[in-house]
């Protein structure tokens, strides 16, 4: 049967859905709805970046640029009078095209040139946003971006926007998981395992990596558009290197093997940042940003040393060990089934059944 029907694979998705539905009504959390919207938005960017880092094995240090491109396209185009739902795909198209043009020549080269190129791209986009004052407002910000209104419903409260954003986030989680479990996801894992073998078995390694990069850029743009109509004000410094680094921290913290990792990472980083800022203000009595960067650097180093696969796979392994303890070895894993039955689980059943501890999806 289809993989979704398997109860153990449904559990994390059901839990996420339940959490998303009730979170904004929980007593202690109600007052953080605004932050939760931001978590959902940044989780979308982080999932895309996670696909790139975990499955194409490349780091982007400029994902804030794609986020910014989506945000400013939505802002500028909808201010010019077009409907936000028209502005959004224009942003996606623009960002996707730019990502393709940048990535195509870079992925032909081996090694980590993408990190350098995206770093440069981030600086260029940031500078353009700041300098193109007549269009973007520059340092004076782009203000009065219209709120999203669909079929007469205005998404103008934190709660309504929360549900809109998290519906998108959940859709991205699901489609991302589907991708990981698919032929293309397997091909990406194969590239990780042995690039020469993958290529010799018919995997267009360059093309596949480019596609992941474009997808992750487009997700960044989508999130940016969502941000524009939520914040209604865009300021250049939101889209600088600092955010690009934060996004990498989210992915490393949560882990990139599973689509849940970046979501958790986005939550932790977004919610911890104001706390850290406050703490550092009290400690240093002023320049807060510096301490933040130091803490993020520290988190990156500690994760690399102690939990290189991220929190989610680490926790999942721990949970699995607990659950597995009372049962004799072998009863949890899929028993060697006759061919006919194994076929029923589908190619993807094997992904879930991977006993190495890889988190499904």
């Amino acid at each position, binding site marked *: 049967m*289809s993989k979704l029907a398997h109860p153990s694979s449904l559990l994390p998705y059901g839990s996420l859905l339940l959490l998303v539905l009730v979170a904004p009504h929980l007593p202690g959390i109600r007052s953080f709805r605004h932050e939760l919207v931001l978590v959902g938005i940044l989780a979308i960017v982080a999932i895309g970046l996670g696909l790139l880092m975990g499955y194409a094995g490349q780091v982007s240090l400029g994902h804030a640029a794609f986020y910014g491109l989506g945000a400013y396209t939505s802002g500028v185009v909808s201010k010019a009078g077009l409907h936000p739902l028209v502005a959004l795909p224009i942003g996606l198209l623009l960002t996707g095209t730019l990502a393709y043009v940048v990535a195509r020549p870079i992925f032909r080269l081996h090694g980590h040139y993408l990190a350098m190129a995206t770093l440069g791209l981030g600086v260029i986009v940031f500078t353009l946003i700041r300098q193109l004052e007549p269009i973007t407002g520059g340092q004076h910000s782009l203000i009065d971006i219209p709120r999203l209104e669909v079929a007469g419903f205005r998404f103008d409260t934190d709660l309504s926007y929360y549900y809109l954003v998290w519906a998108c986030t959940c859709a991205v989680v699901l*489609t*991302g998981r*589907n*991708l990981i*479990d*698919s*032929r*293309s*996801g*397997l*091909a990406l*894992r*194969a590239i*990780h*395992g*042995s690039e*020469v*073998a*993958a*290529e*010799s*078995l*018919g*995997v*267009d*390694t360059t093309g596949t990596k480019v*596609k992941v990069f474009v*997808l992750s850029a487009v997700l960044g743009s989508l999130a940016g558009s969502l941000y524009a109509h939520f914040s209604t004000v865009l300021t250049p410094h939101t889209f600088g290197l600092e955010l690009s680094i934060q996004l990498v921290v989210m992915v490393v913290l949560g882990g990139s093997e599973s689509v849940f990792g970046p979501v958790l990472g986005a939550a932790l980083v977004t919610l911890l940042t104001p706390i850290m800022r406050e703490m550092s203000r009290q400690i240093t009595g002023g320049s807060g940003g510096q301490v933040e960067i130091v803490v993020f650097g520290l988190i990156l180093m500690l994760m690399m040393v102690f939990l290189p696969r991220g929190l989610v796979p680490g926790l999942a392994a721990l949970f699995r060990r607990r659950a597995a303890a009372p049962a004799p070895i072998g009863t949890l*894993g*899929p028993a*060697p089934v006759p*061919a006919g039955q*194994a*076929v029923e689980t*589908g*190619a*993807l*059943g*094997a*992904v879930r*059944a*991977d*006993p*190495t501890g*890889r988190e499904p999806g």
Partner: protein
Amino acid sequence: MAAVAVAAPPLLETRGLTRVFGGLVAVSAVDQAVRAGTIHAIIGPNGAGKTTLFNLLSGVLPPTRGEIRFGDARIDGRLPHQICRLGLARTFQNLQIFANMTVLENVIVGRHGRSSAGFLSAMLRLPAARAEAQAACTVALSWLDFVGLAPRADDPAGSLPYGQQRLLELARALAAEPTLLLLDEPAAGLLGREKDNLADLLARIRSSGVTVLLVEHDMGLVMSVADRVTVLNYGKKLFEGSPDEVQADPDVVVAYLGAPEGA
């Protein structure tokens, strides 16, 4: 019958195929034809250029000079994934299994060139993509069964013993349904009974219509399964003939006396 086979154009043909590494000519002006339906062995001492030849044929390395024809197509200069889709699959002397996957998943990757679902249909779980994934799984399982690894389908590939990892590479390459299969030392590290099993598999692969190009140091295996043998030495083609002719050729004996393992 024999006359017909000789008249048919070769499945694979190289002309003046050359690969230079710095000052070293690893493959030197090799003219080689491989006839369809045969097991053609390439032998030669260590460093003779056998693996480099495979890397040229499969597109892993571009040739410095020369032509490669596969079926109707010129394939020199093409990328490995393009060559694979034309029907050429290979295994690796230094194993290249995907240790981060299960045994079955390794073989499913072998179906990549024979399937087509893209990112979008995968993300949306379109019925066509799911059907294709299930079909790939079925075919992969049947190839695992062919090499005798079906019981280990769900095990992590890295947990297989060495000899079974070689069989896994064989199953993975077969899953691509090649017309030409390049095997780089498939018997290396195999034990006696495993070698007999391999010889048996090779014969069955040939009788299924797949042409095999075999690099192998185990002369017993080569002489028992090969229809034709080419000897490489210092990148050059030294000799080509039937297994019996090769064993009788004085040049070949000399070339092998220089090598530690002898002929």
